[in-house]
Protein backbone atom coordinates (compact mmCIF):
# COMPACT_ATOMS: atom_id res chain seq x y z
CA UNK A 1 0.00 0.00 0.00
CA UNK A 2 1.35 3.44 -0.93
CA UNK A 3 2.44 5.77 1.81
CA UNK A 4 0.15 8.70 2.53
CA UNK A 5 1.54 12.18 2.16
CA UNK A 6 0.12 15.10 4.15
CA UNK A 7 -0.49 17.96 1.79
CA UNK A 8 -2.97 20.80 1.40
CA UNK A 9 -5.87 21.87 -0.74
CA UNK A 10 -6.09 25.32 -2.30
CA UNK A 11 -8.24 26.49 0.61
CA UNK A 12 -5.55 25.42 3.10
CA UNK A 13 -7.22 22.25 4.35
CA UNK A 14 -4.83 19.47 5.31
CA UNK A 15 -5.45 16.25 3.38
CA UNK A 16 -3.69 12.98 2.74
CA UNK A 17 -2.82 11.86 -0.75
CA UNK A 18 -0.68 9.10 -2.14
CA UNK A 19 2.36 9.98 -4.27
CA UNK A 20 0.47 8.64 -7.29
CA UNK A 21 -2.44 10.98 -6.59
CA UNK A 22 -0.10 13.93 -6.18
CA UNK A 23 1.63 13.12 -9.45
CA UNK A 24 -1.72 12.84 -11.17
CA UNK A 25 -2.68 16.25 -9.83
CA UNK A 26 0.56 17.80 -11.06
CA UNK A 27 -0.08 16.42 -14.53
CA UNK A 28 -3.72 17.54 -14.48
CA UNK A 29 -2.77 21.03 -13.30
CA UNK A 30 -0.24 21.62 -16.04
CA UNK A 31 -2.57 20.18 -18.68
CA UNK A 32 -5.45 22.41 -17.56
CA UNK A 33 -3.19 25.48 -17.65
CA UNK A 34 -1.70 24.60 -21.04
CA UNK A 35 -5.16 24.24 -22.58
CA UNK A 36 -6.45 27.46 -21.09
CA UNK A 37 -3.47 29.70 -21.69
CA UNK A 38 -2.23 27.98 -24.86
CA UNK A 39 1.24 27.48 -23.43
CA UNK A 40 3.40 24.37 -23.26
CA UNK A 41 2.92 21.84 -20.48
CA UNK A 42 5.69 21.38 -17.94
CA UNK A 43 8.28 18.81 -18.99
CA UNK A 44 8.53 15.38 -17.49
CA UNK A 45 11.73 16.35 -15.67
CA UNK A 46 9.99 19.39 -14.19
CA UNK A 47 7.07 17.27 -13.04
CA UNK A 48 9.51 14.79 -11.49
CA UNK A 49 11.12 17.64 -9.55
CA UNK A 50 7.73 18.94 -8.40
CA UNK A 51 6.81 15.40 -7.30
CA UNK A 52 9.89 15.35 -5.09
CA UNK A 53 8.86 18.66 -3.52
CA UNK A 54 5.25 17.67 -2.89
CA UNK A 55 5.62 13.98 -2.08
CA UNK A 56 7.27 14.60 1.25
CA UNK A 57 5.93 14.79 4.78
CA UNK A 58 8.54 17.39 5.73
CA UNK A 59 7.07 20.47 7.30
CA UNK A 60 9.46 22.66 5.34
CA UNK A 61 11.51 22.81 2.19
CA UNK A 62 13.61 25.42 0.44
CA UNK A 63 15.69 26.25 -2.60
CA UNK A 64 19.27 25.08 -2.91
CA UNK A 65 21.91 27.23 -1.24
CA UNK A 66 22.93 29.87 -3.75
CA UNK A 67 19.60 29.93 -5.59
CA UNK A 68 17.94 32.48 -3.34
CA UNK A 69 15.88 35.25 -4.94
CA UNK A 70 14.79 38.77 -4.05
CA UNK A 71 11.57 39.14 -2.06
CA UNK A 72 9.43 42.24 -2.57
CA UNK A 73 6.22 43.19 -0.78
CA UNK A 74 2.99 44.96 -1.69
CA UNK A 75 2.88 46.87 1.56
CA UNK A 76 4.79 45.92 4.69
CA UNK A 77 2.90 45.00 7.81
CA UNK A 78 -0.76 45.37 8.55
CA UNK A 79 -0.57 48.65 10.52
CA UNK A 80 -1.97 46.98 13.61
CA UNK A 81 1.05 47.24 15.89
CA UNK A 82 3.10 50.37 16.44
CA UNK A 83 3.52 52.91 13.69
CA UNK A 84 3.82 52.38 9.96
CA UNK A 85 7.50 53.15 10.27
CA UNK A 86 7.78 50.39 12.88
CA UNK A 87 6.18 48.03 10.37
CA UNK A 88 8.88 48.88 7.83
CA UNK A 89 11.57 48.37 10.43
CA UNK A 90 10.13 45.01 11.52
CA UNK A 91 10.11 43.84 7.93
CA UNK A 92 13.66 44.96 7.34
CA UNK A 93 15.12 43.83 10.63
CA UNK A 94 13.06 40.80 11.72
CA UNK A 95 11.57 39.39 8.52
CA UNK A 96 14.64 40.16 6.40
CA UNK A 97 12.68 41.75 3.60
CA UNK A 98 14.85 42.67 0.61
CA UNK A 99 12.67 45.66 -0.18
CA UNK A 100 10.07 47.63 1.78
CA UNK A 101 6.87 49.35 0.82
CA UNK A 102 4.97 52.05 2.69
CA UNK A 103 1.28 52.19 1.96
CA UNK A 104 -1.87 54.01 2.95
CA UNK A 105 -4.39 51.83 4.75
CA UNK A 106 -6.98 52.62 2.09
CA UNK A 107 -4.65 51.03 -0.41
CA UNK A 108 -5.64 52.84 -3.61
CA UNK A 109 -4.17 55.83 -5.44
CA UNK A 110 -7.39 57.86 -5.29
CA UNK A 111 -7.67 58.02 -1.47
CA UNK A 112 -3.88 58.22 -1.04
CA UNK A 113 -3.81 61.31 -3.25
CA UNK A 114 -5.97 63.19 -0.75
CA UNK A 115 -3.48 62.70 2.10
CA UNK A 116 -0.20 63.10 0.24
CA UNK A 117 1.29 65.63 2.64
CA UNK A 118 1.02 63.15 5.48
CA UNK A 119 2.29 60.27 3.35
CA UNK A 120 5.28 62.35 2.32
CA UNK A 121 6.13 63.10 5.94
CA UNK A 122 6.01 59.47 6.95
CA UNK A 123 8.05 58.41 3.90
CA UNK A 124 10.70 61.00 4.57
CA UNK A 125 11.09 59.91 8.18
CA UNK A 126 11.05 56.27 7.15
CA UNK A 127 13.89 56.90 4.70
CA UNK A 128 16.04 58.16 7.58
CA UNK A 129 15.64 54.98 9.63
CA UNK A 130 15.71 52.19 7.03
CA UNK A 131 18.39 50.84 4.73
CA UNK A 132 16.59 48.45 2.35
CA UNK A 133 15.09 49.98 -0.83
CA UNK A 134 11.88 51.68 0.27
CA UNK A 135 9.01 52.53 -2.07
CA UNK A 136 5.35 53.43 -2.02
CA UNK A 137 2.49 51.34 -3.31
CA UNK A 138 -1.23 51.43 -4.00
CA UNK A 139 -3.77 50.06 -6.45
CA UNK A 140 -5.08 51.82 -9.57
CA UNK A 141 -8.53 50.54 -8.44
CA UNK A 142 -10.54 51.99 -11.29
CA UNK A 143 -13.85 51.19 -9.61
CA UNK A 144 -13.28 54.04 -7.14
CA UNK A 145 -13.78 56.54 -9.94
CA UNK A 146 -17.36 55.44 -10.49
CA UNK A 147 -20.57 56.59 -8.85
CA UNK A 148 -21.11 56.75 -5.84
CA UNK A 149 -17.39 56.97 -4.96
CA UNK A 150 -16.36 58.98 -7.98
CA UNK A 151 -17.64 61.16 -10.81
CA UNK A 152 -17.88 58.62 -13.61
CA UNK A 153 -20.99 56.52 -14.40
CA UNK A 154 -20.74 52.99 -13.02
CA UNK A 155 -20.05 50.60 -15.88
CA UNK A 156 -20.84 47.50 -13.85
CA UNK A 157 -24.38 48.86 -13.57
CA UNK A 158 -24.51 49.92 -17.23
CA UNK A 159 -23.27 46.64 -18.66
CA UNK A 160 -26.14 44.42 -17.44
CA UNK A 161 -28.54 46.98 -18.96
CA UNK A 162 -26.86 46.52 -22.31
CA UNK A 163 -25.63 50.14 -22.38
CA UNK A 164 -22.29 49.11 -23.83
CA UNK A 165 -21.29 52.38 -25.49
CA UNK A 166 -21.91 54.34 -22.29
CA UNK A 167 -20.07 51.74 -20.25
CA UNK A 168 -17.05 52.00 -22.54
CA UNK A 169 -17.09 55.79 -22.45
CA UNK A 170 -17.20 55.70 -18.65
CA UNK A 171 -14.20 53.37 -18.49
CA UNK A 172 -12.23 55.54 -20.90
CA UNK A 173 -12.92 58.57 -18.74
CA UNK A 174 -11.89 56.72 -15.59
CA UNK A 175 -8.60 55.64 -17.21
CA UNK A 176 -7.48 59.26 -17.60
CA UNK A 177 -8.53 60.24 -14.08
CA UNK A 178 -6.73 57.25 -12.55
CA UNK A 179 -3.55 57.77 -14.57
CA UNK A 180 -3.45 61.43 -13.47
CA UNK A 181 -3.79 60.43 -9.82
CA UNK A 182 -1.10 57.76 -10.04
CA UNK A 183 1.34 60.15 -11.67
CA UNK A 184 0.57 62.83 -9.08
CA UNK A 185 1.23 60.41 -6.20
CA UNK A 186 4.44 59.21 -7.83
CA UNK A 187 5.68 62.79 -8.24
CA UNK A 188 4.91 63.61 -4.62
CA UNK A 189 6.53 60.47 -3.27
CA UNK A 190 9.66 60.96 -5.37
CA UNK A 191 9.97 64.32 -3.62
CA UNK A 192 9.75 62.41 -0.35
CA UNK A 193 12.60 60.13 -1.34
CA UNK A 194 11.11 56.87 -2.62
CA UNK A 195 13.23 54.44 -4.58
CA UNK A 196 10.32 52.82 -6.38
CA UNK A 197 6.59 53.13 -6.95
CA UNK A 198 4.36 50.05 -7.03
CA UNK A 199 1.12 49.70 -8.98
CA UNK A 200 -0.53 46.71 -7.34
CA UNK A 201 -3.40 44.56 -8.65
CA UNK A 202 -3.22 46.23 -12.04
CA UNK A 203 -6.09 45.01 -14.18
CA UNK A 204 -8.37 44.31 -11.21
CA UNK A 205 -11.24 46.14 -12.90
CA UNK A 206 -10.35 44.72 -16.29
CA UNK A 207 -8.62 46.06 -19.36
CA UNK A 208 -9.32 49.71 -18.55
CA UNK A 209 -7.67 49.28 -15.16
CA UNK A 210 -4.58 47.77 -16.83
CA UNK A 211 -4.52 50.59 -19.37
CA UNK A 212 -4.62 53.21 -16.62
CA UNK A 213 -1.60 51.54 -15.05
CA UNK A 214 0.33 51.38 -18.35
CA UNK A 215 -0.41 55.00 -19.20
CA UNK A 216 0.65 56.12 -15.75
CA UNK A 217 3.86 54.08 -15.94
CA UNK A 218 4.77 55.60 -19.30
CA UNK A 219 4.34 59.11 -17.93
CA UNK A 220 6.16 58.37 -14.69
CA UNK A 221 9.09 56.85 -16.61
CA UNK A 222 9.36 59.97 -18.79
CA UNK A 223 9.43 62.22 -15.72
CA UNK A 224 11.65 60.04 -13.51
CA UNK A 225 14.14 58.05 -15.59
CA UNK A 226 15.88 56.60 -12.54
CA UNK A 227 12.84 55.61 -10.49
CA UNK A 228 12.05 51.95 -9.87
CA UNK A 229 8.56 51.08 -11.12
CA UNK A 230 6.94 47.84 -10.07
CA UNK A 231 3.67 46.47 -11.45
CA UNK A 232 1.81 43.57 -9.87
CA UNK A 233 -1.14 42.11 -11.71
CA UNK A 234 -4.53 41.24 -10.23
CA UNK A 235 -5.16 38.03 -12.10
CA UNK A 236 -3.82 35.63 -14.65
CA UNK A 237 -5.50 37.23 -17.64
CA UNK A 238 -6.94 40.66 -18.26
CA UNK A 239 -10.73 40.74 -18.23
CA UNK A 240 -12.32 42.53 -21.14
CA UNK A 241 -14.73 44.80 -19.28
CA UNK A 242 -14.32 47.27 -22.15
CA UNK A 243 -13.11 44.84 -24.74
CA UNK A 244 -11.56 47.23 -27.25
CA UNK A 245 -8.86 49.08 -25.36
CA UNK A 246 -5.34 48.88 -26.73
CA UNK A 247 -1.87 49.87 -25.66
CA UNK A 248 0.82 50.20 -28.30
CA UNK A 249 -1.54 48.60 -30.81
CA UNK A 250 -2.15 45.52 -28.66
CA UNK A 251 -5.62 44.72 -27.41
CA UNK A 252 -5.52 44.35 -23.63
CA UNK A 253 -8.53 42.11 -23.10
CA UNK A 254 -7.51 38.49 -22.77
CA UNK A 255 -3.78 39.02 -22.30
CA UNK A 256 -1.86 36.38 -20.37
CA UNK A 257 1.35 37.02 -18.38
CA UNK A 258 3.72 36.83 -21.37
CA UNK A 259 1.98 39.64 -23.21
CA UNK A 260 1.19 41.55 -20.01
CA UNK A 261 4.93 41.55 -19.29
CA UNK A 262 5.85 42.76 -22.77
CA UNK A 263 3.55 45.75 -22.53
CA UNK A 264 4.58 46.55 -18.98
CA UNK A 265 8.24 46.48 -20.03
CA UNK A 266 7.43 48.69 -23.01
CA UNK A 267 5.70 51.19 -20.73
CA UNK A 268 8.82 51.33 -18.56
CA UNK A 269 8.53 49.06 -15.51
CA UNK A 270 11.59 47.74 -13.71
CA UNK A 271 9.76 44.82 -12.09
CA UNK A 272 6.79 42.85 -13.43
CA UNK A 273 4.74 40.56 -11.19
CA UNK A 274 2.29 38.04 -12.68
CA UNK A 275 -0.56 36.81 -10.49
CA UNK A 276 -2.03 33.38 -11.06
CA UNK A 277 -5.08 32.56 -8.99
CA UNK A 278 -5.40 29.57 -6.67
CA UNK A 279 -8.31 27.18 -7.18
CA UNK A 280 -9.54 26.35 -3.67
CA UNK A 281 -11.11 23.07 -4.79
CA UNK A 282 -7.86 21.59 -6.05
CA UNK A 283 -4.71 20.46 -4.28
CA UNK A 284 -1.74 22.81 -3.94
CA UNK A 285 0.23 20.47 -6.20
CA UNK A 286 -2.39 20.99 -8.94
CA UNK A 287 -2.35 24.73 -8.31
CA UNK A 288 1.43 25.05 -8.38
CA UNK A 289 1.71 23.05 -11.59
CA UNK A 290 -0.91 25.31 -13.13
CA UNK A 291 0.80 28.46 -11.88
CA UNK A 292 4.18 27.48 -13.26
CA UNK A 293 2.75 26.49 -16.65
CA UNK A 294 1.06 29.87 -17.07
CA UNK A 295 4.03 31.89 -15.79
CA UNK A 296 6.79 30.00 -17.61
CA UNK A 297 6.55 31.63 -21.06
CA UNK A 298 6.68 35.04 -19.40
CA UNK A 299 9.77 34.19 -17.36
CA UNK A 300 11.58 32.73 -20.36
CA UNK A 301 10.98 35.81 -22.50
CA UNK A 302 11.31 38.43 -19.77
CA UNK A 303 13.35 41.54 -20.40
CA UNK A 304 12.70 42.88 -16.91
CA UNK A 305 12.94 41.14 -13.52
CA UNK A 306 9.89 38.98 -12.83
CA UNK A 307 8.58 38.73 -9.27
CA UNK A 308 5.81 36.13 -9.19
CA UNK A 309 3.04 37.11 -6.79
CA UNK A 310 3.16 34.57 -3.97
CA UNK A 311 0.67 35.88 -1.44
CA UNK A 312 -2.60 34.54 -0.19
CA UNK A 313 -4.56 32.89 -2.99
CA UNK A 314 -2.01 33.42 -5.76
CA UNK A 315 1.10 31.67 -7.00
CA UNK A 316 -0.01 28.34 -5.59
CA UNK A 317 -0.27 29.67 -2.02
CA UNK A 318 -3.53 28.60 -0.36
CA UNK A 319 -6.44 30.98 -0.35
CA UNK A 320 -6.57 31.22 3.44
CA UNK A 321 -5.88 34.17 5.63
CA UNK A 322 -3.31 32.10 7.56
CA UNK A 323 -1.54 30.10 4.87
CA UNK A 324 0.35 27.17 6.38
CA UNK A 325 4.11 27.47 6.00
CA UNK A 326 4.32 23.89 4.70
CA UNK A 327 2.28 24.98 1.67
CA UNK A 328 3.90 28.38 1.14
CA UNK A 329 7.45 27.05 1.21
CA UNK A 330 6.59 24.44 -1.42
CA UNK A 331 5.04 27.04 -3.70
CA UNK A 332 8.06 29.28 -3.12
CA UNK A 333 10.64 26.62 -3.88
CA UNK A 334 8.75 25.23 -6.87
CA UNK A 335 8.48 28.66 -8.45
CA UNK A 336 12.17 29.43 -8.06
CA UNK A 337 13.39 25.98 -9.10
CA UNK A 338 11.28 25.70 -12.24
CA UNK A 339 10.87 29.28 -13.42
CA UNK A 340 14.35 30.61 -12.51
CA UNK A 341 12.57 33.72 -11.21
CA UNK A 342 14.12 37.01 -10.29
CA UNK A 343 11.99 37.20 -7.19
CA UNK A 344 8.70 36.73 -5.42
Amino acid at each position, binding site marked *: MEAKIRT*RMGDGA*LVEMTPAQIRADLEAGTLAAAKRSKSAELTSAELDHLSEIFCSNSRFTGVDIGDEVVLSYDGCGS*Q*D*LGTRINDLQYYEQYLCADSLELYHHDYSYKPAKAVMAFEQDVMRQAQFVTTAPLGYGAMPDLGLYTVPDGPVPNWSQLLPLGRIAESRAAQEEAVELAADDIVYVADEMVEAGIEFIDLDTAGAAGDADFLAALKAIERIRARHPDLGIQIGMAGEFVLGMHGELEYDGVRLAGLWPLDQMKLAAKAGVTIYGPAINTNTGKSIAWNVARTLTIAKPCCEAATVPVHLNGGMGVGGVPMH*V*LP*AGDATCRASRAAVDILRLDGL
Partner: protein
Amino acid sequence: MQITRGMRLTEAKTYVAGKLGVSVLDLSDPTVMLDVRKELGLGGILESGEITDIDDPMGIEAKFNIAAVLDVPVNCVERFRAKAGRRRPAQI
Protein backbone atom coordinates in the same frame (compact mmCIF):
# COMPACT_ATOMS: atom_id res chain seq x y z
CA MET B 1 0.30 23.64 29.77
CA GLN B 2 4.05 23.14 29.65
CA ILE B 3 5.04 26.38 31.31
CA THR B 4 2.42 26.44 34.05
CA ARG B 5 1.59 22.77 34.52
CA GLY B 6 4.92 21.14 33.71
CA MET B 7 3.34 18.80 31.16
CA ARG B 8 5.58 17.01 28.66
CA LEU B 9 4.77 17.78 25.05
CA THR B 10 2.65 14.74 24.25
CA GLU B 11 0.58 15.18 27.41
CA ALA B 12 0.20 18.92 26.84
CA LYS B 13 -0.97 18.47 23.24
CA THR B 14 -3.41 15.74 24.24
CA TYR B 15 -4.80 17.88 27.04
CA VAL B 16 -5.29 20.98 24.86
CA ALA B 17 -6.72 19.00 21.95
CA GLY B 18 -9.21 17.44 24.36
CA LYS B 19 -10.28 20.82 25.71
CA LEU B 20 -10.61 22.35 22.24
CA GLY B 21 -12.39 19.36 20.71
CA VAL B 22 -9.81 18.86 17.93
CA SER B 23 -7.16 16.28 17.09
CA VAL B 24 -3.56 16.64 18.19
CA LEU B 25 -2.54 17.14 14.54
CA ASP B 26 -4.96 20.05 14.24
CA LEU B 27 -3.14 22.00 16.97
CA SER B 28 -0.33 22.95 14.53
CA ASP B 29 -2.65 23.65 11.63
CA PRO B 30 -3.45 27.35 11.18
CA THR B 31 -6.29 26.47 8.82
CA VAL B 32 -8.16 24.62 11.58
CA MET B 33 -7.06 26.74 14.51
CA LEU B 34 -8.25 30.02 12.98
CA ASP B 35 -11.85 28.87 13.31
CA VAL B 36 -11.39 27.18 16.69
CA ARG B 37 -9.76 30.24 18.23
CA LYS B 38 -12.44 32.52 16.85
CA GLU B 39 -15.26 30.33 18.09
CA LEU B 40 -13.85 29.97 21.57
CA GLY B 41 -12.60 33.57 21.82
CA LEU B 42 -8.97 32.61 22.36
CA GLY B 43 -7.42 35.52 20.43
CA GLY B 44 -5.46 35.49 17.20
CA ILE B 45 -3.23 37.52 14.92
CA LEU B 46 -4.65 41.00 14.47
CA GLU B 47 -4.68 41.60 10.69
CA SER B 48 -7.58 43.88 11.46
CA GLY B 49 -10.82 42.99 9.82
CA GLU B 50 -9.40 39.91 8.15
CA ILE B 51 -8.55 37.72 11.10
CA THR B 52 -9.57 39.55 14.27
CA ASP B 53 -12.77 41.54 14.16
CA ILE B 54 -13.54 44.37 16.55
CA ASP B 55 -15.73 42.12 18.69
CA ASP B 56 -13.28 39.23 18.87
CA PRO B 57 -11.55 38.95 22.25
CA MET B 58 -7.89 39.85 22.23
CA GLY B 59 -5.13 40.30 24.75
CA ILE B 60 -6.33 40.04 28.34
CA GLU B 61 -9.90 39.39 27.09
CA ALA B 62 -8.67 36.31 25.28
CA LYS B 63 -6.79 35.16 28.34
CA PHE B 64 -10.02 35.13 30.37
CA ASN B 65 -11.41 32.69 27.82
CA ILE B 66 -8.20 30.66 27.68
CA ALA B 67 -8.31 30.23 31.44
CA ALA B 68 -11.91 29.00 31.22
CA VAL B 69 -11.47 26.71 28.21
CA LEU B 70 -8.25 25.12 29.41
CA ASP B 71 -9.46 25.13 32.98
CA VAL B 72 -6.21 26.61 34.31
CA PRO B 73 -5.62 29.68 36.43
CA VAL B 74 -3.92 32.49 34.50
CA ASN B 75 -2.08 34.89 36.81
CA CYS B 76 -2.85 38.16 35.03
CA VAL B 77 -6.51 37.19 34.75
CA GLU B 78 -6.74 36.50 38.48
CA ARG B 79 -5.06 39.82 39.25
CA PHE B 80 -7.40 41.63 36.85
CA ARG B 81 -10.40 40.06 38.60
CA ALA B 82 -9.07 41.07 41.97
CA LYS B 83 -8.33 44.66 40.97
CA ALA B 84 -11.44 45.22 38.87
CA GLY B 85 -13.64 43.71 41.53
CA ARG B 86 -12.74 46.29 44.19
CA ARG B 87 -15.59 48.66 43.28
CA ARG B 88 -19.13 47.56 43.92
CA PRO B 89 -21.33 47.83 40.81
CA ALA B 90 -23.30 50.78 42.28
CA GLN B 91 -20.13 52.88 42.42
CA ILE B 92 -19.15 52.50 38.72
